[in-house]
C-alpha cells in the first residue's frame, strides 16, 4: 500500500525537514503534515506545519482529522549533548507513547509507522559481537539515560506492532550520521584539530551519510517493509583510520583508567563527550547492514566515502561561512502562499513540484484555459465561475486525480463544496473526495479559533 497522506513528527529536526522536502517531490503523496514544537528550519513547499507540545498529546486529533495513513517518527533524541536528559526523556519516552496512542485504536486510519531509532540500541560493550544484526539485543542493560530511553521507546513500538496487526511497522536503527549539514557530538569531535582517543584503544566505527539517512527513510515510507533494519554504510573503520581520512592526527589523550574524570575535566574546557559516545570511543560498534540491502536499498556512500565527504566539507567550510541567510519560518507568509486565492504564478511552481515535464505543460495549458474562461465570464458579468452549474474548475473532467488534488488548496470553501457535489455525482474518485474533505476540514480548522 503506497503512502498518500503522511504525517512527519519532528519536522523541525534536521531529519524531519529533509524527509518532508524529499516527499514533497513525490506526486503519489497527497498530503504531508509535519508536527513539532518548534518551527521548521527548512523551506517547505506544500507541507502543512502544525505546532504541538513536546509530549504530542493532541496528535490523535490531527491524525484523525487529516486521515493520515502513514506516520514517520523522526523525532527521537539520540545524542544527549543536544538537550537535557529530562527533556530527552520527555520527548523519547512520553512523546513516543503519545504518538503510538495516536496511531492505535480499532478505527485508526494509520496503516504504516516508520520509527527512526539508533544503533545506540545495541550499546558498546566489551563482549559485543563485531557485527550486530537486527535480531540481537544488547548483552548488558544500558548504563546511560539516552540508551535507556531508546530501549524503552523501541519496546513501546514493538508492543504497538503486536497489538495493531493492520499497521506495517518499520524501525530503522541508524549508525552514527556524518555529513556537511548534520551536527552531532561526533562531527564536533572530528572538527577538532586532532581526533581524541582513549589510550590503548582503537574502536571500530561505522557511519552513514546524511543523504543515505533521508533516502532510507523515503525508501521504507514508499514500500511495505515490516521489521527492524540497521542503516549503516558498508565498511567499518578504525578510529585511527578515520583520523587519517580526515587528514588529522589522532591524540590518545584520554587515559584508559579514570576516563570519566578526564572527560568531566574536558567538559569544563568546553569539549563535551556524552556518556554514550564514551562507550563507543572505548569499544566501538559495527552492525550488519545487509537486511536493508536485501530489501532493495542501495547506499550512496560507504563509511569511508562519508568520512572523506565530511573532511572535504570541513576544509571548505571556513571559506563558505558567510554564505546564504538561514531559512526562517514565517507563518503569515506561508499561509498566504498556501491559502490565498490571489497566489497564481507562484502557485504553478508549487503545484508543479514533483510532476513530470509533460504534466507541468498540461497543467499550464489548463490554467491558461481556466484564466481565459474566467475573463470571458467576467466580461459577460456572470461573476465567479464557482457559481456555474458545472464544476468550479474549468476543464475539470480532463484532469486526473493527481492534478486535481494540488489545486484544492487554492479553492474557496463554497467552491470546494460545489466540487464535492460535482465529483460525487459523476466520477466518484475516492482519492479526490477524501482530498476535498481534507481540504474542507483544514479550512474549517483554520477559520475556527484553535481549541484550547
Amino acid at each position: 500500500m503506497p503512502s498518500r497522506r503522511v504525517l512527519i513528527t519532528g519536522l523541525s529536526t534536521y531529519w524531519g525537514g529533509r524527509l518532508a522536502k524529499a516527499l514533497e517531490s513525490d506526486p503519489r503523496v497527497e498530503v504531508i503534515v509535519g508536527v513539532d514544537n518548534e518551527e521548521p528550519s527548512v523551506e517547505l513547499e506544500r507541507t502543512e506545519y502544525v505546532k504541538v507540545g513536546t509530549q504530542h498529546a493532541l496528535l490523535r486529533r490531527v491524525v484523525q482529522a487529516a486521515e493520515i495513513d502513514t506516520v514517520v517518527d523522526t523525532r527521537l533524541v539520540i545524542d544527549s549533548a543536544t538537550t537535557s536528559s529530562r527533556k530527552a526523556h520527555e520527548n523519547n519516552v512520553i512523546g513516543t507513547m503519545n504518538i503510538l496512542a495516536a496511531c492505535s485504536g480499532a478505527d485508526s486510519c494509520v496503516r504504516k509507522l516508520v520509527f527512526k531509532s539508533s544503533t545506540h540500541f545495541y550499546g558498546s560493550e566489551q563482549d559485543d559481537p563485531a557485527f550486530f544484526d537486527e535480531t540481537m539485543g544488547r548483552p548488558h542493560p544500558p548504563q546511560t539515560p539516552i540508551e535507556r530511553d531508546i530501549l524503552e521507546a523501541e519496546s513501546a513500538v514493538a508492543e504497538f506492532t503486536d497489538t495493531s496487526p493492520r499497521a506495517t511497522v518499520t524501525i530503522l536503527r541508524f549508525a552514527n550520521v556524518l555529513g556537511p549539514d548534520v551536527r552531532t557530538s561526533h562531527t564536533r569531535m572530528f572538527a577538532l584539530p586532532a581526533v581524541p582517543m582513549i589510550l590503548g584503544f582503537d574502536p571500530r566505527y561505522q557511519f552513514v551519510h546524511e543523504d543515505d539517512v533521508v533516502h532510507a527513510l523515503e525508501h521504507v515510507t514508499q514500500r511495505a517493509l515490516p521489521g527492524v533494519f540497521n542503516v549503516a554504510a558498508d565498511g567499518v573503520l578504525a578510529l585511527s583510520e578515520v583520523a587519517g581520512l580526515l587528514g588529522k592526527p589522532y591524540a590518545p589523550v584520554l587515559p584508559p583508567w579514570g576516563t570519566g574524570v578526564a572527560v568531566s575535566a574536558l567538559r569544563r574546557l568546553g569539549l563535551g563527550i556524552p556518556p554514550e559516545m564514551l562507550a563507543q570511543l572505548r569499544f566501538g560498534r559495527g552492525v550488519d547492514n545487509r537486511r536493508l540491502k536485501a530489501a532493495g536499498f542501495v547506499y550512496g556512500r560507504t563509511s569511508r566515502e562519508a568520512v572523506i565527504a565530511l573532511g572535504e566539507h570541513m576544509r571548505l567550510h571556513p571559506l563558505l561561512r558567510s554564505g546564504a541567510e538561514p531559512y526562517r519560518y514565517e507563518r503569515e507568509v506561508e499561509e498566504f502562499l498556501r491559502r490565498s486565492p490571489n497566489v497564481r504564478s507562484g502557485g504553478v511552481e508549487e503545484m508543479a513540484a514533483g510532476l513530470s515535464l509533460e504534466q507541468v505543460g498540461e497543467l499550464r495549458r489548463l490554467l491558461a484555459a481556466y484564466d481565459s474562461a474566467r475573463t470571458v465570464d467576467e466580461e459577460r458579468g456572470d461573476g465567479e465561475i464557482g457559481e456555474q452549474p458545472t464544476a468550479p474548475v474549468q476543464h475539470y473532467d480532463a484532469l486526473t486525480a493527481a492534478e486535481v488534488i494540488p489545486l484544492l488548496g487554492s479553492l474557496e470553501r463554497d467552491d470546494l463544496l460545489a466540487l464535492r457535489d460535482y465529483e460525487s455525482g459523476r466520477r466518484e474518485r475516492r482519492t479526490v473526495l477524501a482530498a476535498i474533505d481534507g481540504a474542507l476540514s483544514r479550512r474549517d480548522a483554520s477559520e475556527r479559533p484553535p481549541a484550547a
Partner: protein
Amino acid sequence: MAEPVRTPLSSRERRSPNRGAQSRLAVLADEDLRNHLPAVEPARTLTDWGRSERVEGIMDRTLVEFLYRYWFRAEVEGIANVPSAGGALLVSNHSGALPPDATMIGKAIREEHPRPRPLNITVEHFFKGYPGFSTLLPKIGCVAAHPANVHRLLYDEEQLVLVFPEGRKGTEKLYKDRYRLRRFGRGGFVEAAMRARVPIVPVCVVGAEEASPVFAQLGLLRRLTGLLYVPLTPTFPHLGPLGMLGYLPAKFKLRFLEPISFDDPEAHSDKGLVQSTAHEVRARIQESLFEMVSKRESVWLG
C-alpha cells in the same frame, strides 16, 4: 588467547531480550544475506574486522618469521587437510603464558599451504577491554570469540577460523600438566561449525608447552593488574612485560588432522550429537599429541 568462559560459541546467546520485537518485527531473519556482503574497498588497508595488512605484514616479516624459522624451527605435517576454499574451523590444543601456538599455526598456513589464506584467531572478550591489546590484537587477525563473529566468518565470509576450546583452562594449566587436554568447553565450537556447515580440522601443536612453561599462577599480581592471569615463567614477571615474549627455543611440531565434515544442516540442534562430536575431536587431538610426544627424541632438537 583463549576461547571465553563467559561466551560459549553456541547460539544460545543470540537471543534478544526484546521478544516482542522478534515475533513480528524480524521476519527476514533466516534469509540468506551472503550476496549482500560489503564489497572490498581497495584503498583501505584495514578490513571491517579491523585487521591491518600493514601491521600484520610487518609482524610477519620480523618477529613471526624469526620465531617460526629460527627459534622454534617449526615442522608441519598434513597441511593439505586445511581446505583451499570455503570456511573451516581449526581446533587446536592450547598452552603457554602468552601463547605462541596461534601465530605459528597462522604462519604455517601462510608458508606451507599451496593456497595461503588468512587465519582468524578467536580470543577472549577480555582483550577488547584491555588497553593496548584492544588496539593490537584485531590488527593481527584476532577476533572476539562470539558465536555471531564465528558464524559470520565461517558461513558468510567463508574464512578459516582457529579456536581453542580449552580456553583459559588451557593457558592457566601448569607445566606438570603439559599435553593433557582440559575439558573442551561445552561443545559450542562444534555447534558453530555445524551451523555454518563447515568442516572441523583438528590441529596438534607440540613444543608450545616447553617454549613458555608456566610454573605457577600469581593470584595477587593478577588481581592488582586486572589481567586474566599472571603466570610465573622463566622470564616473567621478573624481566618486565617483555618477559612475556621470552620463549625457550623448543622445537615446534604442528600436525593438521583429517577434517571432520557434517552433512546434516540441522545437526547443530542435536545436543547429543554436538557433545559426542566434541568428545571425538578432543580424543583425536589427545591421541595424536601423545603419539607425537612419544616419538619426540629431544625437546629442543625434535
